[in-house]
């Protein structure tokens, strides 16, 4: 395009980043979002950039797209795209490249599309912005693209609004949009993180197929080594704004050199077909027995118009022995979270029974159930939203027990002891939640639940929002607590790998029903139900016969 710019990269490199440094505004944790990073994206390859939250991987992607927020400045380095250095390029020239030479797809397909515009109009728009042709040509091309990404009934899809589409379908629309002008480079920023495991497998397949068919170069950002194992040709590992290791996928996955990479790979939960050892003195009487539990949601108006009835939990039955852990796995909408809420009576059930220590709590009134509440506690998913930001940790932990009649002095002493027990220093008592990291907050959440000395813990996606290395620590903590206190656990998760780490028994839910229940050895090695087989097959990086490079089951 501009002759004066010298191409430094050899011809087979689509994108090359050299010594890129991006400053952060003053007063942040670090001075640099990324520092002196260099890597090449070879033509027709998939490069995975992997790192935990805050590693600078998204900043790198945004720098390449020229989409950094104004407060974050590129301070030095070279980004060569198709032989052009895009650093210092005028905003207009950059805009001309975006969507045409380099496109991007994002993490959350639910919010990445404009809710007020049809799918077709949003695809047309990118072509119109780059002068692709008449509206008729754009429209034909859009329908061709919708067909290409495997959406059903493309002609109809063209006129649909995004809210009518599922998450996976919306991500397909995003991909269609990104492909519209056949860009050289596609940047995918965690495009499957927000999707269910089976949808994730389909989208990964689609990206790989399209990449091969078109010989496109893909820069794929992820935090999941399973995904890396699925699609990467080469890998860049980032930690705190630095590239700590890079190489071919095989090299990095099988013989990681840098300790951080080794730690990360070791922390990735893998499917274990092994069952947990049974505690010796297991009593026969189940602590929790659920029989034919039903919950239906009613939407719309009963008086006017159509009423929607969704059966979220449908005739669910299971038993849980004291000191054991039952995993409830399923995709979004399977009813697993509703089940968790029913068990702790945050929701009222519409039928069936919940026998907790032989007493049916499903039919108890709130007032009658209240004395039992301390016995059943919950650990929530989002460690950021589940702690009141205006209360000190000490207040969060003691307010419940005090309300149930514990003297404050005793509650305070127990809270301090528990904080130390979950791996926080006793000074945490007087501090506020925002002073802690995600993993630390989840420890507070666990300590809070333990204040009541519960018999049963319901953990709803308790580690899903955490980085893998933190995830492993929290799982270990839960395991340790169970061994010490003999608490029973219902562990709700969408991640089968996590479930296989911690559960004695796993219930697979689909559309409100338990389709299969059994020990991990059955669920993962010898699944009986077709849906379970489908779920297990979709786990990234866990193809059968795929010898694990690192035997890492900490």
């Amino acid at each position, binding site marked *: 395009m501009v002759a004066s710019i010298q191409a430094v990269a050899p011809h087979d490199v689509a994108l090359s980043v050299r010594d890129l440094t991006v400053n952060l505004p003053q007063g942040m944790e670090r001075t640099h979002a990324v520092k002196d990073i260099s890597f090449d994206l070879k033509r027709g390859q998939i490069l995975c950039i992997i790192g935990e939250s805050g590693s600078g991987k998204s900043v790198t992607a945004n720098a390449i*797209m020229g989409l950094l927020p104004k407060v974050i400045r590129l301070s030095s380095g070279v980004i060569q795209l198709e032989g052009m250095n895009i650093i210092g390029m005028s905003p207009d020239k950059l805009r001309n490249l975006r969507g045409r030479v380099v496109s*991007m797809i*994002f993490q959350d397909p639910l919010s990445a599309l404009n809710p*007020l515009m049809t799918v077709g109009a949003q695809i047309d728009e990118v072509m119109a*912005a780059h002068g692709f042709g008449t509206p008729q040509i754009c429209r034909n091309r859009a329908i061709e693209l919708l067909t290409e990404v495997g959406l059903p009934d493309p002609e109809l899809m063209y006129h649909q*609004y995004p809210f009518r589409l599922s998450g996976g379908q919306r991500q397909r629309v995003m991909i269609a949009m990104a492909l519209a002008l056949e860009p050289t480079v596609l940047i995918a920023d965690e495009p499957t993180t927000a999707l269910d495991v089976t949808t994730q497998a389909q989208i990964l397949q689609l990206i790989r197929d399209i990449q091969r068919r078109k010989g496109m170069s893909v820069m794929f950002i992820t935090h999941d080594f399973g995904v890396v194992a699925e699609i990467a040709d080469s890998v860049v590992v980032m930690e705190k704004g630095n590239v700590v290791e890079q190489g071919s996928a095989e090299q990095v996955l099988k013989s990681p050199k840098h300790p951080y990479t080794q730690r990360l790979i070791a922390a990735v939960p893998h499917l274990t077909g092994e069952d947990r050892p049974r505690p010796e003195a297991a009593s026969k009487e189940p602590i929790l027995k659920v029989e034919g539990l039903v919950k239906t949601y009613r939407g719309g108006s009963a008086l006017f118009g159509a009423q929607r009835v969704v059966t979220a939990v449908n005739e669910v039955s299971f038993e849980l022995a004291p000191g054991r852990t039952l995993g409830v796995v399923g995709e979004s909408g399977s009813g697993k979270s509703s089940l968790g809420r029913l068990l702790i009576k945050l929701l009222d059930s519409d039928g069936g029974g919940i026998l907790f220590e032989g007493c049916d709590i499903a039919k108890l009134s709130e007032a009658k159930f209240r004395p039992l509440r301390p016995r059943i506690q919950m650990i929530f998913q989002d460690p950021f939203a589940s702690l009141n930001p205006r209360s000190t940790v000490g207040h969060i932990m003691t307010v419940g027990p005090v309300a149930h009649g514990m003297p404050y002095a005793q509650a305070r002493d127990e809270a301090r002891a528990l904080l130390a027990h979950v791996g926080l220093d006793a000074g945490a008592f007087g501090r506020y939640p925002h002073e802690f990291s995600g993993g630390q907050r989840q420890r507070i959440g666990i300590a809070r639940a333990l204040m009541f000395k519960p018999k049963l813990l319901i953990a709803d996606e308790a580690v899903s929002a955490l980085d893998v290395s933190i995830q492993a620590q929290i799982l270990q903590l839960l395991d340790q607590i169970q061994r010490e206190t003999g608490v029973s656990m219902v562990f709700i998760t969408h991640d089968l790998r996590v479930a296989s780490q911690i559960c004695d028994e796993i219930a697979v839910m689909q559309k409100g029903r338990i389709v299969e229940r059994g020990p991990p050895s059955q669920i993962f090695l010898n699944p009986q139900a077709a849906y379970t087989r489908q779920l297990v097959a979709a786990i990234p990086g866990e193809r059968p016969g795929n010898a694990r490079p690192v035997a890492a089951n900490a």
Partner: protein
Amino acid sequence: MRGFLLNRLSQSLVLLVIVSIIGFGILNLLPGGPLAQFGLDPGMTQQDIERLKGLLGLDRPIWIQYLDWAWRLVRGDWGHSFRDGAPVLEVIGSHLFATLLLMGSSTAIAISIGAWIGIRGATRRYSLFDYLATVGAMVALSVPTFWFGLVGIYVFSLKLGWLPAGNMSEIGDASILGYLHHLILPSIVLSLVHVAIWSRYMRTATLDAISQDFVKTARAKGLSERRILMKHVVGNALLPMITLAGMQLPSVLTGALVTETVFTWPGMGRLFLDSLGYSDYPVVMGLLMFSAILVLLGNLIADIVVAIVDPRIRLA
């Protein structure tokens, strides 16, 4: 969509009945009552007052009075003014035009200028313009309207002599230009506070829309900043503003008490104030019902417009 409309309409009707009961109850249970003013008249004996009560039906139990009043309201008979015997609907009608003119123009000014300031402030956040707009809005919100009105009259009418100090027109002059001349000062004064409110809401709504992921998508597609703003940001930012505009509708027709008084503008606000002073219960109740209907209508219209604009509601 039809179910949604029926639903909202029936809710509105129920609300209207509740408002009418409360309004009627409060007004009639207040000490004094409609005939209190005659108590001060030495020419009226207790017997006269009793006779008047019987004539007006005020001696019946209150719930019968209410049912009677409500039934006539439904049939279109809103009663007669105590002051001059004119039908209430006619009284309201004769003041409606003045208010519509004043409030319509000031609201149009407020919405267009307020939205512009809000969008510009949001897209140039923390710029000089944004700071000035913020400070300006604070001033406009904290200084009472009558003060702006008085200063306006002092400067533009008394000192400069450019604009009339009050009324809607000169006696005997019914030309459009005459109306407009009288309209300028009060509508600008009245719009000041609304510009402030609208610009603040619009700024927040625009900032919300700008931070949405789909705006980032639009940038990644290589759209021009102008198109991103017009097509992706403003459209989504206006959605919450529709509801706000719906809430604005009643005040457009019921008038502004203070401004109409300062500028002796013959609108609904002054009618309400005067009727209260005269204990003109039929007119006061009529105005109350009129504004209640408008509030519900405004919200209903806003809901319908939102449903038309937002496919998530329209097609759900």
